[in-house]
C-alpha cells in the first residue's frame, strides 16, 4: 500500500507536471572551469505554493542549482524562467536563506533583518516596521537591538529567515538552512515552515541533507545524482497532513519513502 501512495518515477521527467509553475528550469548545465560538470541538462518545474526539496549526496550540484535559480550564478547552458520571465540576476520575487546565515556582525538584528528592504530603497521607518513584524514572526521579538554574536545558531538563522521574509518574495530559496542548528530547533523550524507555507503562501526550494526532513516537510523531493549532476528520481511523499511528529515516526508511508530514498542514494555513498 505504501509504495503505491508514494508516487515513484523512473523517468527524470515527472508525469504530473506542475499545473501552475512559478519557476521553470530548462536545459540548465553548469561546468566549472573546463571539466567539472556540476549540472548536466536539468529540466524541472516548481509548483507555486509548494515546498520542493533538493536531495542528494555531497557535490551533486544542489547549491549550484539553487544559486542559478537565485541568479547568483550564470548557467553554462539553458535558462531559468520565473513567472515566465528569463532570469538574468537576482530579483525581488526570490529571496535566499544562506547556510552560514550571512549576517553582518556589525549590524543589529533589526538592521540585518531590514537589509533586503534597504537595498530596495524602502525608507527607514517603513522598513523597520516590516522587519519588526517578521522578527516577531520568527519568534525573536525583543531581540531587535541585539547583535549576531549575542544569539545562538538557531536564532541567527531565524534572523536570516526574517530578512528573507521581509522582502515579501514569492519564492524562498534555502540552502541547508537548518544544518547548523540543533535537533529541537530544527523541529521547531519545520513547524514554522508549514505555517509559513499556509499563511504566507510562499513557494519554497529547500536543500537538505536529511532524508527524514525532506520526507516530512516536502510536497515533492527532487533527487540529484553526482558527476555529472542529473535528476535521478522525483518523489511526492504522501504523508497525511497534520500528522504529529510522534505518529510520523511510525507511519508506514513515511518509513517506506525514507527507505526508498535511502536505497536510491546508497550507491553513491558507498
Amino acid at each position, binding site marked *: 500500500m505504501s509504495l503505491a501512495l508514494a508516487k515513484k518515477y523512473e523517468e527524470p521527467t515527472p508525469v504530473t507536471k506542475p499545473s501552475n509553475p512559478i519557476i521553470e528550469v530548462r536545459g540548465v548545465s553548469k561546468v566549472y572551469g573546463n571539466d567539472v560538470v556540476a549540472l548536466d541538462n536539468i529540466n524541472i518545474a516548481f509548483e507555486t505554493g509548494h515546498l520542493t526539496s533538493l536531495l542528494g549526496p555531497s557535490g551533486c550540484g544542489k547549491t549550484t542549482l539553487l544559486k542559478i535559480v537565485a541568479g547568483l550564478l550564470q548557467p553554462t547552458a539553458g535558462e531559468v524562467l520565473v513567472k515566465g520571465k528569463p532570469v538574468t*540576476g537576482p*530579483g525581488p520575487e526570490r*529571496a*535566499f536563506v544562506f547556510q552560514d546565515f*550571512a549576517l*553582518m*556582525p*556589525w549590524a543589529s538584528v533589526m538592521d540585518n533583518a531590514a*537589509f533586503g528592504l534597504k537595498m530596495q530603497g524602502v525608507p527607514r521607518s517603513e522598513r523597520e516596521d516590516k522587519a519588526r513584524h517578521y522578527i516577531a514572526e520568527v519568534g525573536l521579538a525583543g531581540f531587535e537591538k541585539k547583535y549576531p*554574536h549575542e544569539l545562538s545558531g538557531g536564532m541567527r538563522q531565524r534572523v536570516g529567515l526574517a530578512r528573507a521574509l521581509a522582502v515579501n518574495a514569492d519564492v524562498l530559496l534555502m540552502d541547508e538552512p537548518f544544518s547548523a542548528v540543533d535537533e529541537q530547533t530544527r523541529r521547531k523550524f519545520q513547524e514554522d515552515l508549514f505555517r509559513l507555507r499556509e499563511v504566507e503562501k510562499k513557494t519554497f526550494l529547500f536543500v537538505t541533507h536529511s532524508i527524514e526532513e525532506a520526507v516530512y516537510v516536502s510536497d515533492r523531493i527532487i533527487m540529484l545524482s553526482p558527476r555529472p549532476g542529473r535528476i535521478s528520481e522525483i518523489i511526492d511523499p504522501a504523508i497525511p497532513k497534520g500528522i504529529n511528529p510522534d505518529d510520523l515516526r511510525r507511519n508506514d508511508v513515511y518509513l517506506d519513502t525514507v527507505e526508498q530514498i535511502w536505497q536510491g542514494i546508497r550507491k553513491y555513498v558507498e
Partner: protein
Amino acid sequence: MSYSPTAQPAFAGPRRDAPTIWSRIGEVTLFWKILSVVIFAALWEYAGRTGFNFSFPTFSATVSAFFEMVADGSMGAAYLRTLEPLVIGLAFSLIVGISAGVAMGLRRDVEWFTLPVFIVMQAAPMAALIPLITFVYGIGLASKVLAVVMLSLPVIAINSYKAVRNVPPSLVSMCHSFMGNRRQQIFQIVIPAASPMMFAGLRLGVAEGFSGVVLAELLITPTGIGDLITYHRSVANFAHMYATIASIVLFAIIAVSTLQWIEAKLFRPEKRSSK
C-alpha cells in the same frame, strides 16, 4: 625594515561578556607595567652611576635634561618640525594606501600591476634608498615626507588589500541576492567588514611612519628631533641626547597605543565575525 608587519585579527580589548576575568587581568597587567617601568628606571640609574661608559647618563640626569629642554622650548619646537613631514606623509599614505588596498582587493587587474609595487616597497631597505631620494628631491620637506610615505604606505595598502580579500564571500553574495548593486556591495558590505583589519594596518603604518621620519631627520638633514639628537651628541650633552631619544620612543608608543585603544573600542572582537 624588510620584515612584513601584518595585522592579525588578534584578540584585543576587554570582552563584554566576561567582565570580571578580563578586568582583573587588566589590573594585573597594569601592575606589571608599572613595576617593569620602575625596575627599568632603577637599573638605568644604577648602570649610569657605575660609569661603565662615559656617554651613558643616569636616569635622573636624563629626566632633568628632558624637563630643561621642555622649559627652554627647544623640545616643543623640535616636535613641531618633526610632526610636519610625519602628519603630511601619514595623511598621504592613509588616503592612497586605503584606496589602493581596496582597489587591489576588489579588482584582479589592479592587483596584478599594483601589488608588486607595494611588495617591493615593503621589502626594500629604506636607509639604502634615502641617498637616492635626496638626489632627486633635495634635502627639503619633500624628501622627508617621501621617507615617511615609503615606510608607512606599503603596510597600510597591503593590510587593506588583505582585509578586503578576507571579507566572507557569502556576505557579498547575500547583498547581491537582495539586489544590492556593486556600489552597495562595496560600501554596505566590503568596507564595513574589512574595516577592523584595515584599522590594524593603519596602526602599523603609523608605527612605520615614526621610523621613517626619524630616519629621514638623521640621514637627510638634521631637523626637529633628529637635529636635537645630533646637536646634543656633537656637544657631548649625553643626558639631553638620551632624553630626546627616549621622548620620541615614548611618543611613538603612546600614539600607537592610543590607536590600539580606539581600535578595541570601535571593533569589539565579538563584532568582527559572525562565528
